[in-house]
């Protein structure tokens, strides 16, 4: 420390040095970050366990060490060191080193049709997630639930954010999808008594699983009619109450249906919702919703939200628009519900209550209305936070709402609201700007 006088100049110099250090990273394409992350997760796979033991941790900290830190604060420096050595430094170095390479590859990928470029990026993303999750079953579970949360949040954002109706029926749609898909898979492949027909050979199962999920989604869409039709004549608070009523109707319906074992719940779903399956469905969901909300038909949702009378006068069929928003949102909620049932391999009506509603709503409003980015950020951060703060038990439910309140004060529409997800812009290479170096 160079004494009091030198401090200002020092910190100024330090800041500019930091800026210089950071500067190359503005030219990293998404592909470059993926390379860096892949290096980090591979390193963890190879050297994670010895390093963790060397640092006095029993095993690799599963979720960036949050639970270790909260249970045993003495280990906080060790966990931070671990995270830096495994994730921070390798990602930073690898990303920095392969900027030209990544830009080159991204540029040549960019010459292919967008579908190919996107598929290549997604494959790499999947590889990262796969290697990261393989360390423990817990990670796989958390990852799958997080991806399902992304689907739920995004599909709710279609209704609450893009169309601006406060719908509370999402867990209801999810329940319809979950139960429909479960009844089909259990009835057809596991337990012949449920549907009263012969079990199909289990080998067929994975092929018919998408069919079951889609049917679950369609049933949820059908249920959404009961909210969509009232929405023609009423909106705002009244529609919110109607949708809440729908949620309770679905819940008590399932509770009283002995066919699906009422409040005891359905168990024994086959284990078909593995990580690749959930990942694929999530990609499909994000992709189709993003396509939809960016098309002119999808922009009609925003017009109905901002001024319905003007939308009508500008030839927009507002009833069709509302119907599409509810049915499309409910479809993906239903699919997410089906996946949820097969990840947990047990569902009961209690899964789909007010608590679940509050979580999904929190994810939507935390992440940001009217934004695909926002939904992804909201769903991932709230679900990971929920898992990471689990050791705090009851205090978790004080910290997360507090965080939500803070976000609402400083960014009333959520973290990343009203932003389009432009895939081409996201994946494009970022070569050196002209006139520099």
């Amino acid at each position, binding site marked *: 420390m160079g004494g009091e006088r030198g401090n200002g100049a020092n910190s100024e110099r330090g800041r500019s040095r930091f800026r210089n250090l950071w500067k190359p990273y503005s030219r990293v394409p998404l592909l470059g970050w993926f390379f860096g992350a892949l290096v980090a997760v591979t390193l963890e796979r190879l050297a994670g366990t010895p390093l963790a033991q060397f640092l006095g941790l029993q095993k690799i900290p599963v979720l960036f060490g949050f639970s270790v830190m909260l249970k045993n604060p003495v280990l906080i420096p060790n966990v931070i060191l671990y995270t830096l050595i495994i994730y921070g430094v390798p990602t930073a170095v690898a990303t920095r080193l392969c900027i030209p390479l990544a830009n080159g590859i991204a540029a040549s990928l960019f010459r292919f049709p967008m579908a190919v470029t996107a598929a290549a990026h997604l494959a790499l993303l999947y590889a990262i997630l796969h290697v990261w999750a393989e360390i423990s079953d817990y990670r796989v579970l958390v990852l799958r639930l997080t991806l399902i949360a992304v689907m739920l949040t995004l599909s709710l954002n279609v209704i609450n954010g893009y169309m601006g109706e406060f719908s509370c029926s999402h867990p209801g749609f999810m329940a319809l999808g979950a139960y429909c898909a479960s009844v089909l898979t259990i009835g057809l492949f596991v337990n012949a008594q449920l549907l009263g027909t012969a079990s199909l050979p289990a080998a067929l199962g994975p092929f018919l699983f998408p069919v079951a999920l889609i049917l679950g989604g369609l049933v949820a869409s059908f249920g959404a009619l009961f909210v969509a039709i009232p929405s023609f004549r009423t909106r705002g608070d009244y529609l919110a109450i109607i949708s809440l009523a729908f949620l309770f109707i679905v819940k008590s319906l399932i509770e009283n249906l002995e066919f699906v074992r009422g409040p005891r719940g359905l168990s024994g779903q086959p284990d078909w919702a593995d990580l690749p399956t959930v990942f694929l469905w999530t990609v499909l969901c994000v992709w189709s919703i993003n396509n939809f909300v960016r098309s*002119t038909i999808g*922009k*009609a949702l925003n017009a109905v*939200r901002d001024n319905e009378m*003007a939308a009508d*006068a*500008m*030839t927009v*069929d507002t009833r069709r628009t509302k119907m599409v928003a509810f049915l499309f949102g409910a479809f993906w909620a239903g699919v997410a519900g089906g996946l949820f049932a097969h990840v947990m391999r047990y569902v009961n009506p209690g899964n789909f209550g007010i608590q679940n509603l509050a979580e999904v709503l929190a994810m939507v409003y935390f992440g940001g209305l009217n934004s695909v980015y926002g939904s992804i950020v909201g769903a991932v951060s709230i679900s990971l936070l929920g898992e990471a703060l689990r050791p705090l038990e009851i205090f978790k439910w004080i910290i997360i709402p507090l965080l939500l309140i803070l976000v609402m004060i400083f960014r009333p529409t959520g973290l990343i609201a009203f932003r389009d997800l432009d895939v081409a812009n996201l994946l494009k290479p970022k070569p050196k700007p002209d006139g520099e170096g």
Partner: protein
Amino acid sequence: MTSPFLQVRNMSHDFGGLRAVRDYNLEIGSGQIRGLIGPNGAGKTTVFNLITGIYKPGHGEIFLDGRKIDGLPPHRIASLGVSRTFQNLLLWRHMTVIEHVKLAHYSKIRYGLFAAFIGTPGHNREEAEIEEKAVRLLDMMGIRHLADQVVLNLPYGAQRRVEMARALATEPRILLLDEPTAGMNPEELVQIMEIIRRAHKELGLAILLIEHRMKVVMELCERIQTLDFGAVIAEGTPEEIQNNPRVIDAYLGKERAI
């Protein structure tokens, strides 16, 4: 002469006990500019709302090109070629300028929902066409440089132009303008009148204009109707209207003998 393009026959409408429009008749041939004037609360905007289907008339009939349109939902009427602007600017506040104009092509969209979900090549091609048309309209309105701005941040005059561009983007055959110059300064006034003239000439639109500024009405309109308490009290050319004692009474009040 052929039958008028837009014809309103004996239209009346009540709000509760208040008769807002009384036995209103209107005939506009294609390509004509008509004015609708009258003191505040005379029922001018109600006439617009009745023609565009926001209210259903209690009595009377409305024909567009010989086809009965009263009772159709507003978006159907709009897609048949009746477009409008609003007195108090009903824009979609979170949307950008170009999105406003693109969305007004809604009824012309040929691709289906699933094409939008999947983003088929046909969908992309059509979106590109819509974009091109929208940019052309923005050019005509002189607001192309604002295309990616959210309308909430625009000055008032520009918002008026966005609304006009949006109304034209529905490819109307008749345009109902509800006080298009309200709140504009003299310079903007000249520009908007020029735009109305161009829309009339280049696109061959019939125009029905509600306006308080006499200068605008007198310069633009071929014939003018005057409404007072929901009823037409005078109809004629600008000169006739200007000198009509009933119109002067309606605006300035009756001269009383002391």
